[in-house]
């Protein structure tokens, strides 16, 4: 049955992250924060980041969303913690390229677990689910109003 192809999207590690998300909740000290939505599906993420000495010291997310968006957020927090904002920006770029599937030979090692989300490229309707957390991170780090650079990180339509 065609349902079997779901395996390509919902790998076990994704289901695990979604069921038991890492860094879920709130921080005591927050330097950057943002709330973002996928207007069409109603998914929403609140992201809190603590950047000290040019390092992402801590990060936490909350909100509502599907398996993919929750897993992606959890994996994103794992990947960026301990990195500089610049390195995190770099990861956002790599992730954005990965999920639209344009570059088959893309090196996605720096994304850690999140690299398994490459399967989403085959499910165009779900790309925005995977992208939400990363887009939120990008905006939290690069603009004040959480809107300024939203269009830059993913090449698909935001909705």
């Amino acid at each position, binding site marked *: 049955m065609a349902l079997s192809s779901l395996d390509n999207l*919902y790998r076990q590690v994704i289901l695990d992250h979604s069921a038991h998300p890492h860094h879920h909740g709130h921080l005591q000290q927050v330097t950057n924060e943002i709330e973002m939505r996928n207007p069409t599906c109603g998914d929403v993420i609140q992201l809190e980041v603590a950047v000290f000495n040019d390092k992402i010291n801590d990060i936490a997310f909350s909100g509502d969303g599907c*398996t993919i968006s929750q897993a992606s957020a959890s994996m994103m927090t794992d990947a960026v913690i301990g990195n500089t904002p610049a390195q995190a920006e770099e990861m956002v770029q790599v992730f954005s390229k990965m999920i639209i599937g344009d570059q088959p030979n893309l090196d996605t090692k720096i994304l850690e677990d999140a690299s398994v989300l490459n399967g989403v490229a085959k499910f165009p309707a779900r790309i925005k689910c995977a992208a939400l957390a990363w887009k939120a991170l990008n905006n939290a780090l690069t603009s004040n109003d959480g809107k300024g650079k939203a269009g830059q990180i993913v090449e698909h339509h935001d909705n």
Partner: protein
Amino acid sequence: MVKSLNQIRNDFPILDQKVNDEDLVYLDNAATTQKPRAVVEALAHYYYTDNANVHRGVHTLAERATADFEAAREKVRAFINARSTTEVLFTRGTTTSLNWIAASYGEKVIGAGDEIVISYMEHHSNLVPWQQLALRKKATLKYIKMTADGHLDMTDAAEQITDKTKIVAIAQVSNVLGVVNPIKALAKLAHEHGAIMVADGAQSLPNMPVDVQELDCDFLAFSGHKMLGPTGIGVLYGKEAILNEMPPIEFGGEMIDFVDLFQSSWKELPWKFEAGTPDISGAIGLGAAIDYLSAIGMANVQAHEQELVNYVLPKLLAIDDLTVYGPHDPAQHTGVIAFNLNGLHPHDLATGLDMEGVAVRAGHHCAQPLMKYLKVPATARASFYLYNTKADADRLVDAIVATKEFFKHGTV
């Protein structure tokens, strides 16, 4: 029905395809319906034989195009039993129709302290225009509550609608809960308080007989694409006396009587509101859709959908961990069924169903206030139409169960 279900399905070439290696089951009809050959061929025929701009030319093609276009208006008039074609305005769709009421009638009539009454189950298109009008005018937007099973609470309606109320705007059929709202009773209530009644017919026109004189609503808005017609065309019905008093919303070619350098006057109804070249082929396509529906008969369309609901709703209710919104009595439920698998986001469910070839929607269905009211972030939604079968219903049920199993065990 006049045609067999098989014959009907044959009229819709799109249904005969594989999606993700499975036969397509299209259950996203509340978002938009598929088009029969007759509609697509009406477009092609228009463009291959009669195409010209309307109401402008002396030449033969222009006269034919004008006659085709105005014949479509007459088909709409007859379909909704309006008194006259002067009451039938072509728009881009339900959303534009409702915005026009708010921008013209609303802008003129609503003042500070006036009330506009809607409900929690309204589609954003019948909510945000009123909300923004209320904000502009410092008017009060009021929401009619719902009963536990998702019906409009008519006791609350009688309280919300007061002598301060100027506009009552309610969907005739909910695009999420599958309930039918009593427009006629609401219109009576509205009129008793000197308010006008706006019916959002986006989900009712495709699925049941609608008679504007019987309902006595003052406005009715609907979209062609949800009733077998092309995208880009919709209708605003309005009572002639009200339309006559309304200023036009758009200005330009076709709608003027006389243009002087610093002032202008407008044509008669309905053209006063139709500035610029209209969607001629869209209107003609909508006319062909109405012909198609009328040949089957709207009562038959409704009966067919009811039969499907009678069949599928109990099966859905029998699935463990599945929550169905709206009434659980099939007799109270239209062909729009919203549901959630507990513990699974509807997006994941919809992706699972899509892998099985079953197309449903997942999200807030342009009804965020309703989602909040129901205390869910989103739902899945299956919506049936005249070409759907019991086999389609079975495929839906099976796919839900299979998807549930997949997510329970992390594999198929």
